[in-house]
């Protein structure tokens, strides 16, 4: 426990200070807090090596070789009693007391306890144990069975010879030593895991200090440095995540919080008139486009309750329901030509979880103004096909076998990429992992979205190669929930965004020039 660094606690405080990161970080930090919960855990097995071997052996011999921490405490509790047993167990006449002999009145006081122990351990073979004995029996089961070797045979069998008894004693000691070795090994393993966890937490905590004290104050100067980019790849500490996202997305549109308020009040007026008249109302100016109609309260409302339903915070009555509604409503007034498009609710929700309301709106509007997002949310089909084509260039380059497998089923990227790109993976990946993808997306731009897609395909390549069309389609539109960031990011890192010396942007640009291909729609056919 002394080794417990103060840093992780400080880190937790920072998490809680930031309202907007709280929901996300709570999910994230729950497992990270485990070491706190079992604060003594890593140290628990530690006393063992320092323990005198004699004592340790007896402790084990009597108490059994448990492995959980709870058992450790139980064992400690019994250590005292074990000490009292020490002479009995060690001396030859002493251990003979364990023999199955009717209770002797003239035994020393200690051996009464020994007798109870004995009966507790052997009771199940001869008679039902007392309730308290049964409990012990379960706890000490593994070695208590082993220790039977020390006992005398039942009266109806020939008694052990001295040599045999000694041999049994030796074998027993060896077994105990073996168990002890195993336990020490496991304890080391546990310690190592704990050390790694602490290290990870320390890393996040120290990364946070670097972000807050060094990088954020010198953002423009440092953002492109190698050191910052490397730190960035590791994942942003939740407490600075929103801030870094905001800075990285930028505010080309020069939206101010006041402008947000203006569009928000406009949206509220519109909703009011929508609910007063009917939604079929055509009294609006003739310029009311499809997008305008889609901005209706109903459409957004329907989707809000279907945004991260498992978090129970965006549903009606949930703490962020109105907030999400406001940001989406204000956006449809700000960009009526784009309007509300499905998928937006997921993006806005992730931003709301990490930023204050007006900042979330500013990041949202600027993010959707990026070329890739604009192409998708305006449902510019020919542009989307260009993105898919560029994706396939790198797909073939990185995963040729899987590429051919998909091609044999006419399984095109629009089957799985649409969901991934529209929601920036926030719907298809666990939220904490999606945030890490967003981190690097903010660093690397649209290219990283497609690289992540290839990383997912790489991660599951072996499984996907065994599947047919419908199973691949099902798999990719509903990814396994146990996907971990370590595995995914090592797969993403292994994806080379380099095609015969051309980078993503160049490949994409050359596809844009190549307009002859036009709107050829490759479409999937059912294959078995």
């Amino acid at each position, binding site marked *: 426990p002394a080794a417990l660094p103060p840093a992780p606690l400080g880190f937790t405080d920072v998490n809680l200070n930031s309202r907007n990161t709280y929901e996300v970080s709570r999910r994230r930090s729950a497992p990270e807090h485990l070491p706190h919960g079992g604060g003594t855990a890593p140290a628990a097995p530690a006393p063992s090596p320092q323990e005198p071997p004699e004592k340790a052996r007896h402790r084990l011999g009597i108490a059994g070789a448990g492995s959980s921490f709870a058992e450790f405490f139980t064992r400690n509790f019994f250590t005292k009693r074990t000490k009292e047993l020490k002479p009995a167990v060690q001396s030859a006449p002493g251990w003979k007391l364990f023999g199955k002999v009717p209770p002797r009145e003239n035994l020393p006081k200690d051996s009464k306890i020994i007798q109870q122990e004995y009966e507790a351990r052997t009771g199940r073979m001869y008679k039902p144990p007392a309730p308290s004995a049964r409990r012990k029996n379960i706890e000490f089961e593994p070695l208590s069975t082993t220790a039977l070797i020390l006992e005398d045979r039942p009266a109806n069998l020939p008694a052990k010879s001295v040599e045999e008894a000694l041999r049994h004693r030796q074998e027993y000691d060896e077994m105990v030593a073996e168990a002890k070795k195993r336990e020490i090994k496991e304890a080391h393993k546990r310690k190592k895991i704990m050390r790694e966890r602490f290290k990870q937490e320390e890393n996040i905590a120290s990364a946070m200090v670097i972000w807050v004290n060094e990088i954020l104050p010198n953002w423009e100067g440092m953002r492109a440095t190698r050191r910052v980019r490397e730190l960035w790849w590791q994942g942003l500490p939740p407490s600075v995540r929103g801030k870094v996202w905001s800075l990285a997305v930028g505010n080309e549109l020069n939206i101010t919080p006041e402008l947000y308020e203006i569009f928000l009040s406009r949206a509220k007026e519109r909703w009011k008139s929508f609910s007063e008249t009917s*939604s*079929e109302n055509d009294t609006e100016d003739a310029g009311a486009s*499809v997008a305008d109609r*889609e901005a209706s309260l109903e*459409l957004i409302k*329907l*989707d809000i309750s*279907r*945004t*991260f*339903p*498992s978090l129970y915070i965006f549903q009606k009555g949930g703490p962020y329901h109105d907030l999400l509604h406001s940001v989406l409503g204000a956006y449809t007034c700000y960009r009526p030509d784009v*309007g509300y*498009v*499905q*998928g937006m*609710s997921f993006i806005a929700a992730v931003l709301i979880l990490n930023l204050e309301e007006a900042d979330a709106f500013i990041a949202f509007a600027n993010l959707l103004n990026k070329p890739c997002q604009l192409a998708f949310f305006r*449902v510019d*089909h020919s542009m*989307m096909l260009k993105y898919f084509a560029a994706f396939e260039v790198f797909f073939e380059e990185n995963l040729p076998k899987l590429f051919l497998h998909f091609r044999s089923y006419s399984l095109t990227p*629009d*089957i*799985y990429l*649409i*969901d991934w790109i*529209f*929601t920036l993976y926030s*719907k298809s990946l666990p939220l904490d992992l999606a945030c890490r993808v967003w981190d690097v997306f903010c660093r690397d731009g649209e290219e990283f979205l497609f690289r992540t897609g290839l990383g997912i395909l790489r991660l599951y390549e072996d499984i996907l190669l065994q599947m047919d069309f*419908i*199973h691949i*389609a*099902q798999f990719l*539109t*509903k990814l396994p929930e146990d996907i971990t960031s370590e595995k995914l990011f090592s797969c993403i890192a292994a994806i080379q965004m380099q095609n015969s010396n051309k980078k993503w942007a160049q490949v994409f640009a050359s596809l844009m020039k190549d307009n002859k291909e036009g709107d050829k*729609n*490759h*479409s*999937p*056919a*059912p294959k*078995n």
Partner: protein
Amino acid sequence: MQKHNQKEHLYKLLVIGDLGVGKTSIIKRYVHQNFSPHYRATIGVDFALKVLNWDAETVVRLQLWDIAGQERFGNMTRVYYREAMGAFIVFDVTRPATFEAVTKWKEDLDSKLVLPNGKPVPTVLLANKCDQGIDVLMNNGIKMDQFCKENGFVGWFETSAKENININEASRCLVKHIIASESDPVQSVEPDIIKPHLNSSKIVSCSACFKS
């Protein structure tokens, strides 16, 4: 694993209709036999596979394409229509606007997809969320029959994914028409080959099963 004399059919079925009418819920009920009020919005397309032991000689595998409902996605999602053999068009009985959109969905479907013989793909209309008891549209079955005839639906069903009403029946109706249109486009479909298991008073027969 199939017997030698067993035929296997693979059909791609589309499930389309306005946003939030319950397309995903219907599919989850049909394939996984469960219901949750907390499904996430579908972006693009989701998939499910349902295997039916149609009769002693026939296994039917249904590839269900659950297509995002927003009108705006029209251009994007029409590529998903290709080579489908049948479709469900779903609306929400509690939202009249979603019924008004049904003809749009049907026209869109027919303009982008025809069977190899040039006929439109068999399509069944599903009036979903019928458990919510709003019978504005449903109080007149004859009107609905008329609507289906006029708009080329092979049948219609009041369904509830929540209460598991009529979903299996609707699927059987659609598959029956697909098999019929596939095996012999001229032959008429007998209305009483398949008797749906009725477990609800709200059952409506497949109105067009007697169509030629």
